[in-house]
């Protein structure tokens, strides 16, 4: 009974202090709002309008039509003309353009013999006749840009010749579930919930305990009968509400602005979010028992935040990472929540069917709470 009263004392004190700290209170709302708008618009893995140049050795009407046709795909945007390949390579080196299309002098002959033109199929083993019609020089250091240009390799040339497409039957048929229009925001917005919660939840709690010692309140607090676990719980609960507010902001605005659906039930969403919020909060508490001041707490938060953004599957697919990196990713709560929230929001999965992630987050919370309470000593030495 007294234990509950003590938790309530810490909790209501924390809420009162938070409501007076305008800056922090503002951040609670502004961080999700601004980051959602920023990343929702900015992050785009469907690459379009890459600035490219052209070296046109043929200078014929055909070469100009070829350039127009390539532009029409919207993958690239021709911004510069270069006299020769040396100039083009220099331009790539100083990132004036990311790639250059080199159109050879004999482009019309090459085109005429090209199989897509359909004057009968020349034998493909014949080196003379199976030459490509032009060449791309690409800055391959950015793999995403390189992949986008590579996708142009098999570009149909039917428009160029104003005749119906002579397409081959594809080997596979692809049915795209959950995000048929392939909009990046559909994947980014739920992921952003995980990233923003990781950031704010760990940051708030890691600072919460350290602040008590920094401002000299700890000496008073530890001469009272309050127990470490009560202090921890009293510090965590207010931030759970804040986390819930942030999730609501991100998902409702994501739905309004970026048309990201929320397919799963709100109960499933609430359960998954609560699991992750408590896991992140206890991680923050563990940090706070190591940090000597708020700056150190902040540094450790960033140390956790970076891998949570890069390894959790938010930016890059988890399945593409090497095995060792996958183990590290598994240790981060954000990775598990990333799966859960995308599952619930996009695929209407019941989280109980993803029990590994659920149990992992629950265990992480309990372990974190135990470690933080054990490490927190009610003494000054």
């Amino acid at each position, binding site marked *: *009974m*007294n234990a509950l*009263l*003590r938790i*309530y*004392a*810490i909790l*209501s*004190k924390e809420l*009162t*202090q938070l409501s*007076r*700290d305008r800056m922090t209170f503002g951040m609670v709302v502004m961080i999700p709002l601004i980051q959602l708008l920023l990343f929702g618009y900015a992050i785009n893995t469907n690459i379009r309008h890459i600035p490219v140049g052209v070296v046109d050795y043929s200078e014929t009407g055909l070469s100009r039509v070829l350039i127009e046709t390539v532009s029409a795909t919207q993958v690239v945007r021709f911004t510069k003309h270069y006299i020769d390949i040396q100039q083009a390579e220099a331009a790539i080196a100083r990132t004036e353009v990311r790639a250059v299309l080199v159109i050879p002098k004999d482009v019309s002959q090459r085109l005429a013999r090209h199989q897509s033109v359909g004057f009968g199929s020349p034998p493909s083993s014949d080196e003379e006749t199976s030459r490509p019609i032009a060449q791309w020089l690409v800055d391959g250091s950015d793999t995403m840009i390189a992949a986008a240009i590579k996708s142009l390799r098999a570009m149909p040339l039917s428009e160029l010749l104003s005749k119906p497409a002579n397409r081959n039957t594809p080997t596979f048929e692809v049915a795209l579930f959950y995000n048929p229009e392939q909009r990046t925001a559909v994947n980014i917005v739920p992921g952003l919930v995980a990233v923003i919660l990781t950031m704010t939840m760990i940051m708030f709690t890691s600072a919460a305990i350290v602040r008590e010692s920094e*401002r*000299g*309140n*700890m*000496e*008073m*607090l*530890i*001469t*009272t*009968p*309050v127990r470490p676990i009560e202090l921890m719980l009293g510090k965590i609960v207010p931030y759970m509400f804040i986390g819930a507010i942030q999730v609501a902001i991100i998902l409702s605005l994501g739905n309004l602005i970026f048309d990201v659906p929320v397919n799963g039930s709100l109960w499933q969403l609430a359960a998954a979010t609560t699991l992750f919020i408590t896991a992140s909060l206890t991680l923050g508490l563990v940090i706070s028992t190591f940090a000597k001041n708020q700056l150190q707490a902040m540094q450790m938060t960033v140390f956790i935040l970076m891998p949570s953004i890069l390894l959790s599957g938010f930016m890059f697919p988890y399945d593409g990472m090497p095995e060792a990196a996958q183990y590290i990713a598994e240790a981060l709560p954000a990775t598990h929540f990333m799966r859960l929230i995308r599952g619930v929001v996009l695929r209407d999965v019941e989280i109980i069917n993803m029990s590994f992630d659920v149990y992992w987050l629950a265990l992480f919370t309990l372990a974190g709470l135990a470690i933080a309470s054990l490490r927190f000593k*009610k*003494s*000054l*030495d």
Partner: protein
Amino acid sequence: MVERGRIYGFLGPNGCGKTTAIRMLTGLLKPSAGEVEVLGFKLPRDAEKLRLRIGYMTQKFSLYNDLSVKENLQFVAKIYGLSRRARKKRIDELLEIYGLEQKTNQFAGNMSGGQRQRLGLAAAVLHQPELLFLDEPTSAVDPENRREFWEQLFDLSDRGTSILVSTHYMDEAERCHKLAILETGIKRADGSPEELMQQMGAHVVEVASSNLRQLKQQLIELPEVITAAQLGARLRVLVKDSIADPLDFLVQQKGISSLDELSLVRPSLEDVFVTCTGEGRQ
């Protein structure tokens, strides 16, 4: 040994271990050697049980600056498990005793040093502890407030609370029932202020002279003189009590510049303090 309902003082220079001693007695620090027992509780084993029966007011204000007076007291009352009704009653009582009724809704951070210190005391005695620790309670307070503060301490001790207070102010130390003089962590003397002054082991002579600075230099060269300190136009000289007649002794000294006026005066606590701690320094 702090007797029940008495005020016991720790007097000592900065860095002599007053705060450390209090922190060990409240269970905040573990002693590097030896054992601590307070109110029959062994520390650190029984620290939690002890905490319900002691109050501790820290040297630096340790309540929340961004909470109001009432919110701070509410917080402490809840931590000590007072019921809603008991909280209201006790807080109203404390606000009245410590003259904070007008400040109920003011933030602790915006109050003066004196008000903040009264709030600190109110919070420390909220759960009616048997034993109260005060670590340099009046270091940020003007003399007027300091007097008032001591009145409140006497009220508390009158109602049976034992108080242990650390200080480096002589006038404050003089108010304690009993007193220990500490230096570099070692107790140099203890007793009531009167006892300490009587047992000091030195005579106090006040000397007036036209050339005090030079006189002081000459006097402290003498092995029988413990110290000499200037007080305005006079020099306060402590002479070892092995000299039966200190006035005569001083007059007999050769090569001393003019001694205009000599008188034997009552020792003060400062003199006690200087004789006790001076030994360590020499």
